[in-house]
């Protein structure tokens, strides 16, 4: 009988723990933001003790679909600004669509000296596997395909290409040694964990459309003060410093220069 008395106690405990954390927002972020966003969120959570920001990383296209289907995200950081713009058109946005960075693609390798690589070296028969993000739905994959086509290399290297589900899986294919070279985000190549294993070379951005990245507060997050203050924090000096350190070009800087 004693156990039955504990049951309501256990139930109320479960209920309490879920209601106690009222101020919590969920951020959906493109995989290229992984390391930069982790740092930004950590520093934000330190200064805002009353709330908590949680981030999930994945492909921009997937989040876009999920938000359309009522996904539980308050803020959406996309690697391609067109996705949040489309959400805004559908009436699913709770704020203006704001550009936050321009991304860059690089050739990255941990088995070859990537600093000496150029796009042309991808045609070298010694390179048998090249990883890139899936151009069908990943923004970095689309730009990688554009760069390969602009340089006339697509047909020469097509046979060697393997496609990651997002830019993080692409890097992982190279990191595990299963592809010799990857076309990944500069922000990932600059991460200390990854950069200690290998080098990179920038792919000139004249070969592809700009990787303009944008965020939006979703309709779900529209009424949440924490979502607004986190969006504001992205414009702060400390957040911008972190973004620059990870190789992102900030939108205002490009217009000023």
């Amino acid at each position, binding site marked *: 009988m004693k156990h039955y008395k504990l049951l309501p106690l256990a139930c109320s405990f479960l209920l309490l723990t879920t209601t106690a954390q009222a101020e919590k927002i969920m951020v959906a972020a493109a995989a290229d933001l992984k390391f930069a966003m982790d740092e930004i969120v950590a520093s934000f959570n330190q200064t805002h003790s009353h709330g908590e920001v949680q981030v999930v990383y994945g*492909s921009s*296209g*997937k989040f*876009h*679909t999920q938000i359309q289907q009522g996904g539980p995200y308050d803020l959406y950081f996309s690697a391609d600004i067109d996705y949040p713009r489309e959400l805004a058109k559908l009436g699913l946005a709770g704020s203006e669509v704001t550009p936050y960075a321009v991304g860059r693609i690089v050739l990255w390798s941990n088995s070859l000296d990537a600093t000496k690589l150029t796009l042309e070296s991808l045609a070298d028969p010694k390179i*048998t*596997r090249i*990883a890139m993000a*899936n151009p*069908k*739905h990943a923004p970095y994959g689309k730009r990688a395909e554009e760069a390969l086509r602009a340089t006339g290399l697509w047909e020469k290297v097509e046979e060697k*290409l*393997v*496609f*990651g*589900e997002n830019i993080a899986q692409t890097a992982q*294919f190279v990191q*595990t*040694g*299963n*592809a010799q070279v990857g076309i990944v985000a500069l922000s990932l190549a600059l991460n200390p964990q990854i950069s200690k294993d290998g080098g990179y070379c920038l792919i000139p951005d004249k070969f592809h459309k700009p990787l303009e990245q944008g965020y939006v507060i979703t309709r779900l997050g529209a009424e949440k003060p924490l979502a607004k203050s986190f969006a504001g924090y992205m414009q702060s000096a400390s957040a911008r410093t972190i973004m620059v350190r990870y190789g992102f070009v900030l939108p205002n800087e490009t217009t000023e220069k």
Partner: protein
Amino acid sequence: MWLNGSDLQAIWLTIRLASIVTLILLLIGTPIAWWLARTRSRCQGVIGAVVALPLVLPPSVLGFYLLLAMGPQGPVGQLTRTLGLGALPFTFWGLVLASVFYSLPFMVQPLQNAFEAIGDRPLEVAATLGASPLDAFFSVAVPLARPGFLTASILTFAHTVGEFGVVLMIGGNIPGITRVASVQIYDHVEAMEYTSAHRLSAIMLIFSFLVLLALYAKRPGGRRD
């Protein structure tokens, strides 16, 4: 045409993969199931558990370990390189190897049950009639276990068709080589091509239902008379 070229390519690839995996598993799974059904060895429990692992293991675990093992630094990768077979990830045969692991219990367990159901008696009779163990196996056990072979093959084939997580992790999504139907559907959804996704998904749904119907409808017993 209702389906486009890359959809058809994905379906054909899936059928080819599932057929080859089923054939290989018939060859590998039969002796394992036979041994598990007949042995009194202490290892039986351990081997049985290892065979059943893919039933509970997340595909991501299997995919992750296979990616490392088959990579250039991994044991399987080094073996295939010394044998001159090259690296297995992102290849069709890499998928075959992964699927053989992944579908192993679906072949072994129905066969094991079928072999156990035969019991010792028919084999003892065969032995008294002068049949060698191998002869007894092929002329007594195999015919008696025929329904088990059918169930095991259908389940293995269907389970390989339904594979997704492992393929996504070690396949690299190459058209005609590793882009199977389940991955093709995923790509359609990601690219918001819902019409194409619907078509392929409906085919998968009908196929899966028919397979299960074939299995359950032929099952004897129950209360049908």
